[in-house]
């Protein structure tokens, strides 16, 4: 069978032919009869079978007749692999009796409390009972009883009376998430699912078990009794709570978001979501949403204002500063919250209208655009199929959770070896072939030794950068293959990006055929960079130098900045130094997110004028002079780009609160008031300009993205290999049920004018292998590593060197404004090796005073032997004072002194 790739290339899949109910079906070798039949249009009922879990054949709902050498016999369709010439019957009286029998068995002890069950209306058990089931129970005896819903963690409740023991949740927990915190307990018909006696189901992925539970046994605390499935409206979208870009079904009831469900996107999320992505929608409705513009009045307080007034105030303030101090006195921070179209409009406003290149969508917590965009790229699928993976980045389980799931599957199930080059253990450490834990700031040193070892250099036994020689040799063995994929991000905010950039440069030059998968966390950071929201960059992944002529020659662009501007750290420093006087915060909260809170605070205090465009009144916004409320997630359409460069569509499901509006319209109006016309009156008009001007997006049209075959999005530039388009991919029943509950197909497609989804993409004009094409388009950015410098200062025996990464639940607005998630932020505590703590006479639970050159605070200590000796780990951005109060953004490392404190002494920042 040929499957067409999105670019039209056919790939061969090995097939066999089977006959189901007399019709012959081409089935993929290795798949189970149940999946093959579904491809062929025959739906066999099932409960335990799930396309993304290993089959267990437990529920026996899928019994069909299969011909075997001894004649026809009943067999579970989910547990019989297809074989050439196989004959299957799914609709005989024998099959029907067997299936009805199983259904009756499942129902005899079921509470039949459908009217009060969250699953009522989208429950396969209910549906099948309705379709085939007996009308009345033949069991007159007392049913089995369990205590009604018990919480198995703060987000999920379990009703064991409704459980049909299909093992989907336990398999997900064990096989997919690697968090085996629930298991079957007991035996026979007293079997229940439960947690450990004194534990809960600790997982960043717990919501998935609610989604895949085929009945209403598992329910989500934030959703329980919120809505009935038949009241629900659905639209397909992409989660923007991090940059993995999981496909989701956004559901609402009466213009209020009620639920996110994962959609099975083969190249991205396989149907899974992290709990933040699933439950963070609550934040949309938070009280602290900005609903109306605010302007700082004469009395110094922010007061509500009309859009006209606020826009004029913003334009006047900016105009005045540009007039008196020049374009370079204005800077734009942020933009990763925005959709691609918003980001383009704002990049154009900043660079062409305001004329400043002091623009950075990252807040000193990412990597330079050249590195993110300019290294050879890999998709998630490519990483998962690589000969080996090297993680030089953060703890993916916390920062990019579903990427963690994808890589974990590749490592655990497919045997792809992983090497970690990290300053502290991660969620993947237990699966790593080798975990190279380096001293903070010394990743490049280790990378150099590693590359040397691969090239055959002798490795000294003391190793390098805190990593032993033996481990280096082991890692070199694993990585000494062509085509390794490096997952690249910021492992720690307590050291500057340059430490990681240096290491990446070494790897880029030293590993043959290496490719990189960026692991930056912030929502649409990739799209914002693609659209040019970074210093020295123009839309379409081109450098200012290369692109100036191309953009300058186009009538759509009034001007192009004269030279490379400043990045976030330099912008804040320039503000403190009174070189920058106006800041535009585009959904940015430097006080929370910039690694060095002291610098951020001084900068915000120093600037004369601040405009904040945001969805929430976060601490940085509260200090602005003009505040413009923006439409948030699910409140506006558009497109977004994930870490791979995959562009997908966002769906609008509810209306924005108050007068909040999409960011691009704010840019358009601000431009008008500044005397310019951005030339946009719709998203499509922006998309058209992006397609025309941005080299990376050449050929990409909204119609193409809307085509049914492209629901997984398209990776730009379009010359990159695209994921295969799978006709009739078996989908999870719940997804279908949820959509079909209102008589819709899963994807409400806009007018499909590209109605031939399997045709090769039309209009691809750009070839990224050519330096520049004939029509004058500039070449895509490439990253040329420079010889790394920045040696770390010597370690002093009295200090611990800080490592600070993010955790899934933090003090960020999204988590804190979601009632279900807010309590889950673990809080700041200092983890250090028991040996180092022992020196201080400190054990787990003791309070310690932690002092850096920047500040001092009191924290709870935790002894953790997985922390490298001499290091200390402190999660970034937890509620209260924290790592940002210790980090000096200008230093190559952050050393802290740790002292004991008498119990009871409070926090000191």
């Amino acid at each position: 069978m040929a499957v067409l790739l999105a670019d039209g290339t056919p790939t061969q899949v090995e097939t066999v032919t089977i006959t189901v109910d007399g019709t012959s079906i081409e089935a993929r070798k290795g798949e189970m009869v149940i999946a093959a039949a579904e491809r062929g249009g025959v739906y066999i009922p099932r409960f335990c079978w799930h396309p993304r879990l290993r089959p267990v054949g437990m529920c026996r709902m899928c019994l069909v007749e299969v011909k075997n050498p001894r004649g026809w016999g009943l067999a579970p369709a989910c547990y019989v692999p297809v074989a050439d010439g196989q004959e299957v019957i799914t609709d005989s009286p024998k099959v029907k009796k067997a299936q009805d029998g199983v259904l009756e068995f499942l129902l005899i002890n079921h509470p039949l409390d459908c009217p009060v069950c969250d699953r009522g209306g989208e429950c396969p058990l209910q549906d099948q009972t309705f379709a085939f089931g007996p009308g009345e129970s033949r069991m007159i005896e007392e049913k089995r009883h369990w205590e009604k819903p018990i919480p198995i963690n703060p987000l999920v409740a379990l009703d064991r009376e409704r459980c049909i023991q299909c093992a989907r949740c336990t398999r997900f927990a064990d096989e997919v998430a690697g968090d085996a915190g629930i298991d079957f307990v007991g035996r026979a018909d007293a079997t229940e699912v439960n947690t450990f006696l004194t534990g809960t189901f600790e997982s960043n992925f717990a919501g998935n078990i609610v989604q895949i539970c085929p009945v209403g046994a598992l329910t989500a605390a934030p959703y329980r009794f919120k809505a009935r499935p038949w009241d629900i409206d659905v639209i397909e979208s992409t989660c923007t709570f991090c940059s993995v870009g999981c496909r989701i079904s956004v559901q609402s009831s009466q213009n209020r978001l009620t639920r996110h469900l994962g959609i099975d996107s083969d190249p991205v999320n396989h149907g899974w979501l992290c709990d933040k992505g699933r439950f963070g929608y609550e934040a949309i409705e938070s009280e602290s949403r900005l609903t109306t513009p605010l302007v700082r009045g004469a009395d110094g307080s922010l007061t509500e204002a009309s859009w006209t007034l606020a826009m004029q105030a913003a334009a006047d303030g900016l105009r005045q500063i540009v007039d008196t101090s020049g374009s370079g006195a204005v800077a734009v921070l942020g933009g990763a919250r925005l959709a691609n179209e918003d980001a383009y409009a704002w990049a154009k406003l900043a660079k062409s209208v305001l004329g400043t290149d002091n623009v950075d969508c990252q807040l000193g917590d990412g990597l330079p655009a050249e590195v993110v965009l300019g290294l050879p790229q890999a998709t998630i699928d490519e990483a998962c199929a690589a000969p080996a993976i090297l993680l030089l980045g953060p703890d993916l389980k916390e920062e990019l959770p579903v990427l963690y799931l994808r890589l974990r599957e590749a490592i655990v199930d497919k045997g792809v070896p992983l090497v970690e080059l990290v300053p502290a253990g991660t969620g993947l450490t237990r699966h790593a072939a080798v975990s190279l834990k380096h001293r903070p700031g010394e990743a490049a040193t280790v990378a150099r030794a590693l590359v040397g070892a691969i090239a055959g250099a002798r490795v000294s036994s003391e190793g390098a950068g805190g990593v032993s020689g033996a481990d280096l040799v082991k890692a070199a063995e694993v990585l000494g293959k062509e085509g390794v994929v490096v997952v690249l991000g910021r492992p720690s905010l307590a050291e500057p990006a340059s430490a990681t950039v240096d290491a990446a440069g070494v790897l880029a030059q030293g590993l043959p055929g290496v490719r990189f998968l960026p692991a930056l966390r912030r929502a649409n950071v990739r799209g914002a960079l693609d659209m040019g929201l970074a210093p020295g960059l123009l839309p379409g992944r081109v450098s200012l130098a290369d692109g100036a002529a191309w953009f300058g020659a186009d009538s759509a662009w009034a001007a192009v900045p004269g030279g490379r501007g400043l990045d976030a750290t330099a912008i804040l420093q320039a503000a403190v130094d009174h070189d920058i006087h106006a800041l535009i915060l585009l959904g940015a909260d430097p006080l929370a997110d910039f690694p060095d809170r002291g610098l951020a605070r001084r900068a915000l205090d120093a600037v004369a004028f601040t405009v904040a465009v945001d969805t929430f009144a976060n601490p940085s916004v509260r200090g602005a002079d003009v505040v413009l409320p923006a439409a948030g997630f699910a409140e506006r359409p558009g497109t977004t780009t994930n870490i791979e460069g995959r562009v997908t569509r966002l769906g609008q499901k509810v209306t924005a609160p108050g007068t909040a509006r999409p960011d691009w319209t704010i840019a358009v109006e601000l431009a008008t008031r500044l005397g310019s016309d951005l030339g946009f009156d719709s998203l499509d008009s922006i998309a058209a300009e992006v397609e025309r001007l941005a080299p990376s997006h050449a050929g990409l049209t909204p119609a193409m993205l809307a085509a049914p075959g492209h629901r997984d999005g398209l990776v730009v530039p379009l010359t990159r290999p695209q994921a295969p388009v799978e006709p009739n991919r078996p989908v999870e029943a719940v997804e279908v049920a949820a959509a079909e509950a209102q008589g819709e197909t899963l994807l409400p497609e806009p007018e499909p004018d590209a109605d031939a989804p399997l045709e090769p993409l039309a209009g691809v004009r750009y070839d990224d292998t050519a330096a520049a094409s004939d029509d004058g388009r500039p070449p895509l950015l490439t990253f040329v590593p420079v010889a790394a410098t920045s040696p770390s200062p010597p370690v002093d025996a009295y200090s611990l060197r800080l490592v600070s990464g993010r955790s899934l639940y933090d003090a960020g607005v999204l988590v804190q404004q979601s009632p279900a998630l807010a309590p889950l932020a673990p809080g700041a505590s200092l983890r250090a090796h028991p040996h180092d703590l022992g020196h201080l006479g400190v054990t787990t639970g003791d309070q310690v005073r932690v002092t850096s050159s920047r500040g001092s605070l009191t924290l709870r200590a935790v002894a953790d032997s997985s922390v490298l000796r001499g290091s200390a780990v402190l999660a970034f951005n937890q509620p209260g004072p924290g790592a940002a109060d210790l980090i000096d953004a200008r230093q190559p490392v952050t050393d802290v002194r740790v002292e004991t404190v008498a119990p009871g002494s409070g926090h000191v920042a």
Partner: protein
Amino acid sequence: MLTDAAAIVTARLGVPNSWTLKAYLETGGYAGLRKALSMTPEEVSAEVMTANLLGRGGAGFEVGRKWSMLAKPRPAYLVINGDESEPCTYKDHMLLEADPHQIIEGTLICAYATGAAQAFIFVRGEFALGIERITAALNEAYAYGAVGPNIFGSGFSVDVVIHPGAGAYICGEETALLESLEGKRGFPRDKPPYFPAVKGLYMQPTVVNNVESVSNLPWIVLNSGEAFKGLGQGRSTGTRIFSLSGHVRQPANFEIEMSKTTFRDLIYDPKLGGGIRHDNQLKAFIPGGASAPWFGPDHLDMGLDQDAVGKAGSMLGSGSVIVMDHTTCMVRASWRITRFFHRESCGQCTPCREGGGWLDKILHRIESGAGREADLDLLLDICDNIAPGLSWPPQKTTICVLGPSIPSSITSAIKMFRDEFLVHIKEGGCPFG
């Protein structure tokens, strides 16, 4: 006819301290192993194949043939099944306590013949004394040089581990046993693809043999497969232990020649069962453990022959014969067996997990006088939904055959004693008090 065939596996039964190495060696112990080690593994396998030793664990599969099916990519493991939990079967329990060295010797011969990398003897957890005896015996055997590296200087090495179970009937089923041995819940694996000989312990080729099965090996090696085959007849060769229980005067384990001896001999011969207690009348007997369909007095003259019993619609199973006299309430008997399966279902398959519980409830209701006439058809229909057609081997409505075994006692009881059910229903209680 009770033949004069000498005991093979129970020969050492009366010997004082029969479980010690000293007693074992004094009675010819480990001679079989020594002889086996002087042969090639293929020659040993050939003897066992000739003997046509049928597995004594329940399924009655030829031991030699099972060995020959071991898939190639090695290592292979050997697992000895001493989980004996089939109701009213108590022969392995006895062998473990009385003759543990014989089990170890048989295990080693099997390991040698199959080239196993390591052997495990899975002993039912409840057999505390048995576990102590066989552990002590293993220690002695190691010290004696019969286990471990370079056994008896032959160059053959193998380790044996005694693995205690923890109480779950289903772990006697070979794939559940392997899961349990891997430290997991005793969930049977679906076959195909998890035939132990292909994907067994740790997904490696594995031989699973019963304790009594391997206890025969020293004798077979010493006396030849032909000699073994000379006992019994047809496919049912050699002698076999039958656990006799219920309403007989002398319930005990009897090792007798297969096929030639009849159920009547077993139950009535003064040297064996000695007849029904109080000279009561035989009402029914179960020929092969609780999973087997029942026989009435008309089957008494059938030989203890695997194929004959199978052809008559039941099975010799685990070799336990349970005798019920005319005072027995058949509703109660079938209820008790059903309750056993209900409680021992591993809980994976819907028909077994839910069906077992439901049948238990209905039978209990009938027994306690609240039955309805429609319940008999309901019982039979539920049985049919668990095991469509009630055929054997069953349809694959469940992962293992525990589920499809549940109907045996119910359908037997209803078929043979329908009136008794009706009396319960009509009189609202048990006529037997």
